[in-house]
Structure formats: C-alpha cells, structure tokens
C-alpha cells in the first residue's frame, strides 16, 4: 500500500461520557478526494465521531491525527433559529476568517444561495440555511468538507436536490468529504467508503461490499433489503461510481 498520508485518521478511538462509551475502538481514515459517509441509527455515535475527528472532543482512548495545515470546512448540526443575533448571510460567510467578497459570492452561487446574501440568517428556511452553511464552508476552500447531517430539517421533496448539489460540489472541487447521512440510496451510489457505525464500526468499505455485509443488514433491516433489491434491478447505472 503506497497510499498518501490521510487527511485525517482515527486509531482505536473511544469517547467515554456519562458512564458509558459513546463510541469505542473506531479506526478510519479519510484520504484526499475521498467521500466517506458514516451511517448508523440514532445514538450510534455519528456526531460524536465527527466531533472527535474535528478535534472538538478529546478521545478517551486511541488518537486522532489530522494532516498539518489541513483546511476544514465544517457544516455543523445547527438550526437557523440558533443564530439569534443580527447577522446577514454575507456576514455569516466571514464568520471564522476574512474572505474576499468575490470568494463568498462565488461560494453562495455554487450552492444556489446567492440571492440570500442580504437576508437575516435566523429568518432562513432550513433548506436555505443548509445551502448557506455549505457555501460558508466552501468559501474557506477546504481540503476536507465535514457535514453533520447536511439534510437536517430539509423537507423530503428537496432532499434529492441537496444530495445532487453535494455530489456536484465534491466532484467539481475534488475535495474530500466526510458526512453523516440517513439516505441509504444516496450513500450507496455516491460514496467511496461507507462506515456503518453503532457504538463501534460494524462494517466499512466500498458501498458494493458493505451492502452484502450481515452487520449492515442487522443495522438497517428491511431498508437494506429494499436497497439491495433496487440495486440488483438497476445494476448497470447505479454502481458506476
């Protein structure tokens, strides 16, 4: 294996809170240009894992290594109403670092949110908010895009658009992406590596391999069956990537 150094890697990471291990013995790597999706039921520790990889939580076991100088764009799990101060979208774009106006406008255009730049953040809908947050992360020109539930609060009819947008952005920019998701179909068709998490990594690998894994079925039950059914039916098209 002559793989280049991963952007971020976890080795046997465990996080212990409130008398139990939220996650334990988790090892994974994200390499440049790779799309890694963490799937798992509620309480599986998906957010905890992401926070630990970002350095927001110190692991109680194992360690996390981020490549030096790594630029991270983070789309945190948040709601527009949480942003309860006078804040225009334009100002949100320069929240953690100064960006030239062209860069932020370009990023907003990329996510289809450029018409919102003078809006107040706490008055956005969930869908608009997620687009703006995504643009904000992109305006930092990240090596790694970390998205915790990027479809949080987005209504069902807009989900496909949002996934399509994320796919286009990642392909176009060539940045790595690490996200949590609940949409198995999207995950299976657009991800390089799937990590099934439930306290610890239950199975991991390319989507084609994961879908036949017994642990995957245990986690997702009938939905996994349904997915396998669909995949076998339209084989040629959906397993291209």
């Amino acid at each position, binding site marked *: 294996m002559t793989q280049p150094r991963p952007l971020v890697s976890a080795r046997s990471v465990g996080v212990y809170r409130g008398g139990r291990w939220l996650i334990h013995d988790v090892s994974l790597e994200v390499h440049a240009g790779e799309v890694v999706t963490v799937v798992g039921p509620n309480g599986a520790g998906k957010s905890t894992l992401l926070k630990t990889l*970002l350095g927001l939580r110190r692991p109680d076991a194992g360690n996390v290594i981020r490549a030096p100088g790594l630029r991270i764009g*983070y789309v945190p799990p948040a709601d527009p109403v949480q942003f309860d*101060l006078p*804040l225009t979208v334009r*100002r949100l774009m320069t929240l*953690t*670092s100064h960006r030239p106006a062209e860069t932020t406008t370009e990023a907003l255009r990329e996510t289809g949110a450029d018409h919102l730049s003078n809006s107040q953040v706490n008055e956005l809908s969930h869908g608009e908010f997620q687009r703006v947050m995504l643009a904000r992360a992109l305006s930092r020109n990240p090596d790694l895009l970390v998205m915790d539930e990027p479809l949080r609060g987005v209504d069902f009819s807009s989900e496909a658009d949002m996934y399509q947008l994320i796919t286009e952005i990642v392909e176009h920019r060539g940045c790595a992406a690490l996200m949590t998701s609940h949409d198995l179909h999207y995950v299976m068709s657009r991800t390089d590596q799937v990590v099934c998490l439930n306290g610890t990594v239950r199975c991991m690998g390319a989507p084609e391999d994961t879908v036949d894994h017994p642990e995957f079925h245990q986690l997702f039950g009938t939905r996994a069956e349904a997915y396998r059914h669909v995949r076998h039916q339209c084989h040629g098209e959906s397993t291209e990537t």
Partner: protein
Amino acid sequence: MLDDFFFRALFATLAVALVAGPTGCVILWQRKAYFGDTMAHSALLGVVLGVILGLNPEAGVFGVAFLVAVAVVALQRVSRLAGDTILGVLAHSTLAIGLVAMALTENYQQYELTAYLFGDVLAVGREDLILIGSGALFGLAMLAAIWRSLVAATLHEGLAAAEGAKPLRNQLIYMALVAAVVAVGMQVVGALLVVALMIVPAAAARTLAHTPEQMALIAILFATLSGVLGLYGSLWLDTPAGPSIVTAAAFIFLGCLVFDAAAQQLSRSRGVRRSVAHAPEDDA
C-alpha cells in the same frame, strides 16, 4: 476642562460606555445578563478584599468578579444544578458576604456603601481619569483583537473551534473584560446598575442592527448618548448621576422598541401589497 468635576465625570462615563456597548452586545448574544449581574453582585466583596490587601478597590472588584465568573463556568460544568440556580446562589451569597466582610473590618465608616452600590461619578479625580481612559482603550483593543472568533464562538462553539478559533481562551479574555467594566463602571453607575450600562444600550441597538458589528457600534452610540443625557439630566433635575444615566438608556431602549414595532408594522403592510402584486419565489 478636566479641572471641572462635571467634565471629569462626563469623560469617565464616555470611556466606560465605549467598552460597555460592545461588551453588552456579547452578553446579550450569549444570554449572560444574569451572569453579568452575578459578577456585579460580588463587587462589594471585591472592594473589601481590595482594601484589605492594600490595593485600590477597583483592582479588588476586578479580581473577585473575574474569579466569580470562572467559578460559575466551572460549577456549571461540574454541578448538576441548573445554570441559573448557580448564578442565583453565587450572586446573593457574594453580596451578603461582601456586606458582612465590610462590617467586620476595622474602620467600617471608611466605606461609602451607597457610592459603591449606586456610583459616584462626580467624585472621579484626575488620576482616576488616566486609569479609566487608558483602561478603556486597552479594553477596546483587546475586544477588537478577539472579536471575530468571539462572535463565531458565540454563534456556534463547535464551528468556531473546528475552524481554528480558540473559544476557551477568548471566553476568558471576554470575562476579564466584563469584570473590568464592572470594576470601572461601578464608579460611574454603581454595582447594582453597572450591568444595565452594558445591556440596555445593546438591547436597544438589537432592534436596529443587521450585523454584529453594526449592533456593537450602535450600542456604543446609545451608551455614550445615555451618558451625556443622563449626566446633563442629573445636573438639570438634581438627581443622582448613575441612576439618571441608566434611566436615559431605558428611555432610548423604549424609543427603539416603539420605532421597531412601527417599522415592522409598516413593512408588513407593504409586504402584503407587494406579494399581491407579484407572487414571491419560494424555494424553501
């Protein structure tokens, strides 16, 4: 000009208002109004400790208020009690202990209790001015240095930390600033009203601002305006200076509230007309 007690008072008030405005904005954003109050309640204890240790009272107030702030944050992390329970216990305990400590010291008469509680800005001396003025400039410089990360961490601590801000360090600097405003502002409006000098102008600014920076600047404007109106008003009506300043701030707040309600009503009726004219695009 500085030989005149009134202009010394005006200068001191404006210097404090300069820092109190933006500091108050962050207090509101972080929902820390009672947190600031708790720090202010510990001021008397700070005065006594400052005098006992042979420092000036302001240094004692600054030290104790900062320690109380750190204690609150630490207790909120460790304890199972609700945040505002901890604030309530600490605020009133430190106030009571301060009063008891004051009574236990040798020459109890040296303390002018009402001056500490309600301010005595007309007694500000020339030497005080140098300290207050340079302190205000230093405070503003510190605030400017951490401003972007402080606003970011106020909005979303995880986001700020993930992208390189240092939330804990900035929060400590910020709490030290609040402690400093409490210590110096105590002279102007007194320990009981010092938090008002921070949050009332900021609350008024909230109704007009579109960005954090606008709110901070408008808060400075309103705080200084309150200072000027309050001091001149106290001269004219022969009322105590500190409460007059806060009263002026309260009226500005009220004015903004009415103005904001009227503006919203107006834009709503306009919006109705516009949406009838052509249907709005809604991609939510």
